[in-house]
């Protein structure tokens, strides 16, 4: 191990090519991971912010807030289920928004107005007064400020921004959080085909005491199948595009990791061929195959860590350089750690290509006596 690390220190030039290629792959991994996390954050923030365990859709909604509708009868049935602690209505409508000081602008802000009762993280327990909303902080990048009025939808229903909340994007749109009353009135004005009565909401969020999955089943039984109840995590996964984005990006990330594995594998296979005489000598004077292969692995891990460090640095620099709201890119510690682990794993697996060759080196070859 010490021998291998000394070689890295004394002959860094030998490892520059492999390190450079791995660094490019590390940057690609970090970038893809950052994009995935950014896209998912922009799509799922409104659900992740919920301080609830379950979301109850109508059974015909196919697990979509847009198609769901819950009336007071169903709500009462849900509230009566043992284990249900609190129930809040939730509604949403996706509308383009214009800033009131530029009403003729053709540049619409993509927004989703959400009405709530049970306050999600970062929002006041009592929803803002009718006609006012708390906006997702990504709208600041579009010049929206507290006190501004946004004109929503084709009818240009005005709502006043009275505050901001972080990380509550919904389906790639900036959220506007208001009372159920505000949501119903804006929806009625701009989506006359989808009006809600005063006792109706799009869905319910439910806080439970105990096993959330069991309560979810109980809720659907209590409503005679009128509802489809999901845990928050299931609901996030069911959001349009989320599973598809995750799957697509994970496949690209997986292929990138495989390429890293092949790069490390080929590089160290070549280096091992080159080192065969030296390994013969080292085996002859008492080096075991495990010690020598351990050195190869140590070098591969060291290279992967250097590449990961550079990739993570580039990723953080990119995150800092991207103006807010322009690119869905997000760097998270867990993603960085996952990518580093993935690269290190790929490097170790890549070394396996060299294992057979190291094992087969005959120490007798050191003095020309190999059979």
């Amino acid at each position: 191990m010490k021998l291998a690390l000394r070689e890295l220190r004394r002959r860094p030039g030998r490892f520059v090519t492999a390190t450079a290629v791995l660094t490019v792959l590390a940057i690609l991994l970090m970038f893809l991971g950052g994009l995935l996390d950014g896209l998912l954050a922009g799509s799922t923030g409104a659900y992740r912010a919920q301080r609830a365990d379950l979301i109850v859709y109508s059974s015909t909604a196919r697990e979509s807030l847009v198609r769901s509708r819950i009336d007071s009868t169903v709500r009462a049935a849900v509230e009566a289920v043992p284990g249900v602690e609190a129930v809040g209505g939730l509604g949403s409508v996706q509308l383009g928004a214009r800033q009131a000081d530029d009403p003729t602008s053709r540049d619409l802000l993509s927004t989703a107005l959400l009405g709530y009762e049970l306050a999600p993280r970062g929002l006041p327990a009592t929803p803002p007064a009718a006609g006012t909303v708390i906006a997702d902080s990504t709208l600041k990048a579009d010049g929206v400020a507290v006190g501004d009025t946004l004109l929503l939808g084709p009818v240009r229903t005005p709502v006043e921004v009275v505050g901001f909340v972080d990380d509550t994007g919904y389906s790639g749109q900036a959220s506007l959080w208001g009372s159920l009353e505000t949501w119903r009135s804006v929806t009625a004005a701009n989506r006359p085909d989808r009006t809600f009565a005063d006792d109706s909401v799009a869905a319910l969020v439910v806080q439970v005491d105990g096993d959330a999955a069991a309560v979810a089943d109980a809720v659907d039984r209590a409503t005679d199948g009128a509802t489809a109840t999901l845990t928050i995590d299931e609901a996030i996964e069911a959001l349009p595009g989320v599973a598809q984005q995750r799957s697509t990006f994970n496949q690209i990330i997986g292929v990138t990791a495989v390429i890293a594995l092949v790069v490390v594998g080929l590089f160290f296979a070549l280096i091992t061929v080159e080192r065969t005489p030296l390994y013969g000598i080292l085996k002859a004077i008492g080096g075991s195959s495990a010690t020598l292969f351990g050195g190869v692995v140590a070098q591969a891990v060291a290279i992967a860590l250097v590449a990961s460090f550079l990739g993570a640095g580039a990723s953080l620099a990119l995150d800092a350089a991207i103006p807010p709201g322009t690119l869905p890119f997000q760097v998270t510690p867990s993603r960085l750690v996952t990518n580093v682990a993935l690269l290190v794993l790929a490097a170790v697996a890549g070394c396996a290509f060299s294992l057979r060759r190291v094992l087969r080196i005959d120490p007798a070859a050191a003095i020309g006596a190999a059979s």
Partner: protein
Amino acid sequence: MTATPTSTSTSTEPAVNQPDPANPSAPPALRMVDVRKVYGSGDGEVVALDHAELEVARDEIVALVGPSGSGKTTLCSIAGGLLHATDGAVEVDGRDITHLSPSELTDFRRSSVGFVFQTVNLVPFLTARENLLVVNELGGRRNRNGSRARARADQLLEELGLADRAGNLPSQLSGGQRQRVAIGRALMNDPALVLFDEPTSALDSKLGDQVVHLIREEMKARGTSAIIVTHDDRITHYADRTVHIEDGRIQA
């Protein structure tokens, strides 16, 4: 440089030497009894070593001479635990290594024998001192006597006249200095037996003479036994005994 042999070598001496007179009960550095080494099988069978008998006493230097393909390298490899004998028994410093497993042989080589190879083969990115210490480092966790190893490396470099070159890489050393570092590496584990594989073949006449002189001095100073595989007649003058081998058979 003048040769300083301590005894005349002949090609007709018996292959079995006398025990160490200073310690008659001590086992010989090497004892090979009826050793055969066969490669392949059936029609393709090649007998590299045929019923070889050899004993090397403590403090004895043996020159092993023979034409190419005569089996001297095979004999040396079996004596050093690099190869298993097909038949027969091999003892080094009283330890029977005939049936050791590959990992036991690895430990044995690291702890009980020294090798000096034909082309020196120092680790190119290690300094002279580190090339000596590599023997200790290859032992991994089993060899954690680092300070003792460092002290021994420094002592050997001093004795080999390389104290001022301890921090130099092999590329910064002359051929003779590199060969001295290789000798130091072979002596790091304080072996009972050191095996030299044609140590002068890559050196010019004058340098070769110096190196062999140094080998004799170092071996005798430590009471270490040595087998020197060679084609070079000059070496036989420095050996206590010359053993000839031909077609895998040690000549009596």
